């Protein structure tokens, strides 16, 4: 996973509420057996609308997406995160995210930033003309107009994103602890194993 700390650039002033992962990437794109190339299908339905932000040359290649409440609700498809990553998006800023989506985004090196609606409204304005600066280390979103918004992030997620760490590798480092749990649990709840004979 690539390390992530400072992201600066233009942002898609998207802002739509309750964007479900079917909108981020429709189901017919889920037939791939690879993680790459899904940017082509990102927001496919919305991109049929003339004047949509994703096809506006003004925002082409923006590393930041500004979204509305409850972004990424619905299906658990990680393809939504892969599609955003493939578009080149590294940070999504919204008033709230679905739990599953923000987990998926994080595991693909995408930072999800939660800010209050007033901050989102302001950033939507700025994004139309100017870049936005995200600093993970200091947990801030700033603009060249003195705007400065502080955000919260889970310390473990921050640590992994900053270091580009592979979570599976980290957990496998605790294989002994997992084995001890399994041995203890086999005594306490012997009926659980095996699940499939």
């Amino acid at each position, binding site marked *: 996973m690539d390390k992530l700390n400072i992201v600066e650039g233009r942002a898609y002033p998207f802002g739509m*509420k*309750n964007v*479900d992962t*079917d*909108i981020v990437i*429709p*189901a*017919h794109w*889920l*037939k*791939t*057996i*690879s*993680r790459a190339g899904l940017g082509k299908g990102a927001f496919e*339905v919305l991109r049929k609308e003339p004047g949509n932000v994703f096809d506006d040359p003004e925002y082409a290649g923006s590393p930041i997406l500004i979204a*509305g*409440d*409850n972004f990424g*609700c*619905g*299906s*658990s*498809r*990680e393809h939504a*995160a892969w599609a955003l990553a493939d578009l080149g998006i590294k940070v999504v800023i919204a008033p*709230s995210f*679905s*739990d*599953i989506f923000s*987990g*998926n985004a994080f*595991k*693909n090196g995408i930072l999800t930033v939660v800010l209050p609606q007033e901050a989102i409204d302001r950033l939507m304005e700025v994004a139309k003309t100017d870049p936005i600066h995200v600093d993970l280390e200091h947990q801030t979103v700033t603009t060249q107009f003195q705007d400065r918004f502080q955000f919260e992030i*889970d*310390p*473990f997620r921050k640590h992994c994103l900053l270091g580009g760490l592979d*979570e*599976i*590798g980290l*957990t*496998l480092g*605790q*294989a002994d*602890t*997992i084995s001890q*749990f*399994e041995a203890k*649990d086999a005594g306490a*709840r*012997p*009926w*659980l*194993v*095996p*699940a*499939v*004979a």
Partner: protein
Amino acid sequence: MVNPRTLYEKIWDAHVVERRPDGTCLIYIDRHLVHEVTSPQAFEGLRMAGRPVRRPDLTLAVPDHNLPTTPRRDAQGNRIPIADPESAQQLAALERNAPEFGVRLIGDADREQGIVHVVGPEQGFTLPGTTLVCGDSHTSSHGALGALAFGIGTSEVEHVLATQTLLLKQSKTMEVVVEGELGFGVTPKDVALAICGRIGTAGGTGYVMEYRGSVFRDMSIEGRLTVANMSIEAGARSGLFAPDEKTFAYLKDRPMAPKGADWDAAVAYWKTLATDEGAQFDKTVVIDAADIVPNVTWGTSPEDVVPVTGVVPDPESFADASKRAAAQKSLDYMGLTAGQRMEDVTVEHIFIGSCTNSRIEDLRAAAALLKGRHIAERIKQALVVPGSGLVKQQAEAEGLDRVFTEAGFEWREPGCSACLGMNPDKVPAGERCASTSNRNFMGRQGPGSRTHLVSPEMAAAAAITGHLTDVRELLKEKQGEVVA
């Protein structure tokens, strides 16, 4: 004496492998269901890193999303090729990956095949008090049996395959209490839709729900599966029911459920799981059963719920500006106008199926209404898709297949079907479907498709009349026929 705990807290505590200073826990996963759509990249990741599946004996693979619901084998038993090369490729990947990593696969033409969330409970793979995950958001379904079950993304699928654990933060708890008795013609699906309508699709975000109160205690396991299934539509990754005598009766003698002395020990343990008297929930939502009526959705979010006897809401009636804009966008997409009576909305397609409503009780309820009747002339396609091969077999033994086909329905092979546009079962652009599935998102049933979420009974009613219909009227007629 330990502090009183909720069902969720008891399951959580029993699965903590390691607690970190920041509160993140490494949680052990007892059961992992794998399907063809969200697993190829996970197996690929393991292969690239040279990692095995840690516990193939706790893992079960079943294809469901991509499979056509037309016959899969010819008379000689040879596979009928899947027309879509990408669907065929995903199925082939699962068929290759499962044996390579030692995972048991229920094949596409096996009698036990079906939608993962129907197969898990049916096989007794799903058990109370377990942690169960699957790369599919409707994994919340398994909470009906008292399993802490939730959907995960593909990176987490890979993490569970490799380590049998997940790194998680404990969720907040929400009790959803429905007391009283459900009215005539009101089903578990209507309860689920009522909850989505009440709290909204983000209402449960960050929470694990527990369904409490007499309505849920009295509900069958099939009904509980429908309600738990739609927890995610209200934002909650998991929705739990306390295991009770109904749960035990449902699970006893299922192929993968414990047997003999193991069974007795398991039941004794399961009886300790219910939320303790005095345990605190972070949030409580109370709904009076008497207020729940047969519901339909009007828009493109499962929270867009109105009584079938109601009208399409006026976007101007919503308080905040972004909701008004969203409602107008939904109405434009759905081809509806504010004030239009829901019962005047005509439909061209009927879909009875999906992990929400494809179990035997759902099929029985729809068939009871359809018996001796025929679908309306304007219906272009009416599909009934059993949730598993075993549901199909049971339905056929009861003669339900004939009731459906005589009424003009197509009787199909088990799978996810028209719930999502991944297989040939789709609703064409601009056409309208009364559907027993769980999501009415834009394009969910195919590009441009328009979905109205309803119960199986309401889908059958719409099939008969050709428009959204208050099932209670038809049920009364039906009762009249019986009396006469």
